[in-house]
């Protein structure tokens, strides 16, 4: 257990060094911060002055060394836009991203597990209702998130005027971003749960339970579903990680004040310190979530729980 944790932490350290190094040079290859800051109308002299002022005229390796040294003391540099420490910018917006991720994940789990259990318990003989539901799930899986977002806005904000367009002013503004993200995740999770339930129902232990008088209901809830969900924990972990890192488009569409929209703004402004801070924080979160899902899997499956000292 302790060994595992240490190995994981070592992995994370290597990952973070590689990530920051790669980002540092890639970002500087894509844009000139000084020119960006000076604006389009600036003279070359003005640009040079800004370059010197921000220390951007020093050799790249010196800048890199300074940056990495700063990181060691949790100094991520300052935002060129807000002038605040980059990390503070990220930390300020992180709760909103976490909130949206938690809402979307909860909705996904609440919808996908019953749908999956229902689809998976057809025992090879799906009726018309299950066939139709399978088709809907299949189509939804192929629909990109931004299309769902635009459809939702068109229907519920423009036509019906039930929900506010965008922003974060109360519960009703949370609905559309949550539904958009869940619409992407539900079909995937539901299909995995359905496949796992169908697989579990074909197992010998289900036959044993049936032969001992267990009803179809008891078999589904006490035997098939627990085994099916065990196999789905890995996907839930991956999906949550995706929500932390991948809600950039959804946050932008709905002007959600999370790290996703911060990332977009920072990239547009060549605010490298913020871009890097976002990337590092997300990397750590994704890593933590994946490790958590791993540990949860080990804790839930008695076959892996073995040899716990």
């Amino acid at each position, binding site marked *: 257990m302790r060994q595992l944790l240490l190995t994981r932490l070592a992995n994370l350290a290597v990952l973070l060094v590689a990530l920051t190094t790669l980002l540092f040079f890639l970002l500087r290859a894509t844009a000139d911060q000084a020119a960006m800051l000076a604006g389009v109308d600036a003279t070359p002299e003005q640009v040079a002055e800004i370059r010197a002022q921000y220390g951007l005229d020093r050799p790249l390796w010196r800048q890199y060394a300074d940056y990495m040294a700063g990181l060691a003391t949790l100094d991520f540099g300052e935002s060129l836009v807000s002038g605040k420490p980059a990390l503070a910018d990220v930390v300020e917006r992180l709760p909103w991203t976490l909130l949206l991720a938690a809402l979307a994940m909860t909705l996904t789990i609440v919808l996908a597990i019953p749908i999956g259990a229902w689809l998976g318990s057809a*025992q*090879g*003989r799906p009726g018309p209702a299950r066939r139709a539901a399978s088709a809907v799930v299949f189509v939804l899986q192929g629909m990109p998130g931004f299309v769902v977002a635009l459809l939702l806005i068109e229907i519920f904000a423009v036509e019906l005027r039930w929900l506010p367009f965008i922003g974060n002013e109360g519960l009703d503004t949370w609905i559309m971003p949550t539904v958009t993200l869940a619409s992407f995740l539900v079909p995937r999770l539901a299909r995995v749960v359905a496949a796992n339930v169908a697989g579990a129902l074909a*197992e*010998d*232990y289900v*036959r*044993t*339970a*049936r*032969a*001992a*008088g*267990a*009803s*179809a209901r*008891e078999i589904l809830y*006490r*035997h098939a579903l*627990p*085994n099916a969900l*065990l196999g789905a924990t890995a996907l839930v972990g991956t999906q949550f990680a995706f929500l932390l890192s991948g809600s950039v488009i959804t946050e932008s569409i709905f002007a959600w004040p999370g790290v996703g929209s911060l990332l977009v703004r920072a990239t547009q402004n060549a605010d490298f310190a913020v871009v890097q801070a976002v990337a590092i924080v997300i990397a750590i979160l994704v890593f933590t979530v994946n490790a958590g899902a791993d540990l949860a899997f080990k804790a*839930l*499956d*008695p*076959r892996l729980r073995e040899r716990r000292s």
Partner: protein
Amino acid sequence: MSTPDAPHAGGTARAAGKPVPASSPVGSPALDLQDLRVDFPTPLGEVGIVDGVSLSIARGEALGMVGESGSGKTMIALACLRMVPEPGRVAATRLRVADRDLLALDEPALCAVRGADVGVVFQNPMTAFNPVRTIGEQLAATWLRHRPAGGARPSRREARERAIAALREVGIAAPERRVDAYPHQMSGGMLQRALIAHAMINQPALIVADEPTTALDATVQAQILDLLRARLANAGLLLVTHDLGVAAEICDRVAVVYAGRVVEVGPARELLESPRHPYTQALLAAAPRLDPERRPLAPIPGAPPSPADLVAGCRYAPRCPRAVPRCGERPRLAPEGPHAYACWNPADDARRAKP
């Protein structure tokens, strides 16, 4: 569900909420099967996997059902639980377990019979238990499931005690600890014992064991068979196996099944010493034996027929060395005392032939 003129049935006692005695003195057979058919629809029409099988098992009696893979023996066993998989159809003139007419019951009523009046031991003990629940949980669940409705519901503690007792009865050492073990923490032989405990926890009238020792190594096999026999008490046992020797060893009677029909049935010893049906003879000749003569094994020529293309009349005729023209007609099981066989040209009675 039991008729008024059968007050001795185990089910009556249970319905009345009284504790079921371990060995209810009963006259009704554990299993009474008359003219069982199991048909599967195929694109080419109905295929009869089981074709007119009649069997009866008395309380405390063990019947071995022997046949090759695909002979329909497992289907017969599943029919005793009304668990023939879709789209198979079960028909019979009589299908009674402990005086309960299984053909008249709907699914909820069948659930009440399964595990209570019939207990099943399946083939592969390693996969027969749910891997994420403890053995004790699974035994306790089967016990609790069949407690009579109404009256005080037994506590979890009581169910656990029952599970421990059941494990002890099948010879599992330290059952207080094993009750909390997960299936992967136990050996195959121990799991098969636990599975027998699971099948017997509600003292069923009939125990169906479908190849209970196939997945186990030889030394454990003998222990499991002895255990099954020893724990039988007043229940009937239907032992499905492909091994005539195993069946003869622990069973009172043996039924030999070929292509969905019983071809010979009789007291185990008699069947083994004096098989009358050529198929039974061939099965015996094909089995390895500890014989000083070291005769070579005699395989049966040909292959078991596919249920989709069966010959009219005796289904063994195409492979039978004793076939006669009349084999084109279906032979019926001709009872000769307790020993019956379906053959137009049976082998001589070996015992009578002896000087």
